[in-house]
């Protein structure tokens, strides 16, 4: 209670903003749940659930300026996408591979978020390939002397890739306006962290690149927001990158094609479910007097209605037409 008051004071968040954060978290949760259900019904090809990561994703994305800063999410970042401004319709069109899908016109895998207007940049499926892109965008902002920040998201597994290292190093040498957010959920699909790296906190690697690294409780949305705000301030002050490691847990299997019972005990999953930020944050807000049961129900109803309405709408929408298969490879100025 005192901690949350302190955090709010420090970060200058208003009650309205706190409720917005909560709503984004609930919306992301509802979208993940919905996509998993639709996939099991045979209506969508594949899902990546972000359940459990909401605090890490909303807390970090909330500190950004939508449409100004550049966002390079990874496939689990549904809450990043909705915090920056993608709608349930945008997300579900991507999931259903519909014609009007803003992400890729129904071409890409679900959860490969992309939105030109919001500066959410499409990534490739191979792990961590988006990080050099983020660094490149930051270099462009620096060369153009623009007040823009690039944020590269990835999971703990990505930290073992060469792309991760090359991105960190280049960002350090060039002091780029880039923030790396590692959503550390302790598993690269089935590979536990102890087989991924021989260290406790991957944030210590930042020192080897000449910039700060911090580890935060990724289930504490305000702690993540605080770390991200600090990183944003550093960038604005011309002090270069920060690596933020948000320690969290994915409550669901890696994807709809994964059975996590083969590599995680149910006890472990239950222990982390008890720390679920989507349950904890409303509780915190109630203690603080920002939220009551009625207001909570109102938000939940709104979110559920929004996701229901989006599902109904998108299910009826047409798929891409066959003759358009070769479009959306290059920018099309004439045809819009």
């Amino acid at each position: 209670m005192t901690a949350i008051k302190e955090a709010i004071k420090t970060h200058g968040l208003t009650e309205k903003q706190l409720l917005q954060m909560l709503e984004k978290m609930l919306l992301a949760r509802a979208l993940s749940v919905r996509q998993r259900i639709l996939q099991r019904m045979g209506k969508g090809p594949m899902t990546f659930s972000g359940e459990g990561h909401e605090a890490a994703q909303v807390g970090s994305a909330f500190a950004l300026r939508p449409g100004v800063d550049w966002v390079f999410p990874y496939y689990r970042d549904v809450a990043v996408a909705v915090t920056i401004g993608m709608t349930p319709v945008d997300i579900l069109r991507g999931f259903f591979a519909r014609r009007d899908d803003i992400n890729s016109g129904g071409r890409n895998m679900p959860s490969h978020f992309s939105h030109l207007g919001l500066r959410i940049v499409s990534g490739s499926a191979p792990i961590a390939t988006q990080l050099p892109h983020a660094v490149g965008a930051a270099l462009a902002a620096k060369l153009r002397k623009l007040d823009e920040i690039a944020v590269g998201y990835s999971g703990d597994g990505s930290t073992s890739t060469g792309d991760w290292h090359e991105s960190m190093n280049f960002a350090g040498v060039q002091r780029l306006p880039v923030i790396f957010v590692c959503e550390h959920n302790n598993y690269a699909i089935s590979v536990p962290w102890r087989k991924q790296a021989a260290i406790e906190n991957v944030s210590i690697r930042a020192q080897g690149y000449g910039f700060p690294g911090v580890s935060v409780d990724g289930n504490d949305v305000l702690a993540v927001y605080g770390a991200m705000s600090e990183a944003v301030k550093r960038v604005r002050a011309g002090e270069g990158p920060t690596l933020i490691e948000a320690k969290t847990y994915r409550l669901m299997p890696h994807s709809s094609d994964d059975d996590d019972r083969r590599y995680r005990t149910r006890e472990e999953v239950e222990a982390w479910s008890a720390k679920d930020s989507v349950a904890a944050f409303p509780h915190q807000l109630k203690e603080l007097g920002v939220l009551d049961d009625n207001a909570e129900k109102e938000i939940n109803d709104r979110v559920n209605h929004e996701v229901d309405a989006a599902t109904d709408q998108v299910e009826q929408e047409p798929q891409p037409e066959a003759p358009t298969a070769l479009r959306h490879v290059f920018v099309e100025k004439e045809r819009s």
Partner: protein
Amino acid sequence: MVSVKEIQGAAGLSGDQLLDIYYKMLLARTVGQRERMLNRMGKGPFAVTGEGHEATQVGTAFPLKPGYDWVVPYYRDIGVALTIGQSPRDLLLAHLSRADDISSSGRNMPSHFSDPHLRIVSGSAPVATHLPHGAGIALASKLRGLDEVTIVYTGDGGTSTGDCHEAMNFAGVHKLAVIFVIENNQYAISVPTRKQFAVEDVSTRAEGYGFPGVTVDGNDVLAVYAAAKDAIERARRGDGATLIEAKTYRLVPHTSDDDDRRYRSREEVEQWTARDPLVRYRGWLKEYNVADERKLDGLHEQAAREVDEATEEAENAPTPKPESALTHVFVED
């Protein structure tokens, strides 16, 4: 000769060993100079040499068990190759692309050292691609329960590659018996280290892989030897990897195709020439009466003679026959 075991800084080496180290450094210097000269005479295609790196190379290779431990060098490691047991003749046969070249039978670029019996493993030309090989060899030793140690060499530029990161991370996770030696000569060809990484000592990265990293004066052969010996002992007893950053300087251009005047001031080169590891070590040997002027001059003459003979022999050796072009791709019984 005097007993030197008690001399502080001698790292427990005998007088003979101390002089052997000096001789290997001399040989490396002489072979490097000879290759550059032969290249300028139009006799060798390309020279990439290690003048200035001798203390780092000989100091790290000397505590290894040749033919038992695995050595994965990079192109500047003439001093490593000679310390492990390649001869000036071996190196010059490769430089002149002769049929009897042990490294590749005249196929590969010069300074791409390889010797199956000495367990010197051939590398590819792209920078740092051999670091994952080093980690892989160390994994094989571990799986087979052998106490072999693998040592992998690269330059400061190598540290920016993804391969470097992946190799080190893997070595950390699996606690492999591998030693990464960064010969930090402050230039990746023409790129200075301030444009290569935003840290003073790249050895600090080791902590992020869960193993120790040390920075040593790469022009002090006995300091390098002591650091390498510790790391090799650690690896052999199963305590995992070490990163050794040896700070040194290349006294000559990157290769015979490089003009370093375009990116290094002559003042800087002169400053480092004054810290020449050979001159420095020679001074140390005299100061502690390990050898006198005459003895050391004798070693110089011996090295020059050995390299002269090797040059003559290599120059007279035949080039590969065209019809052999397809051999040496796979192992041949």
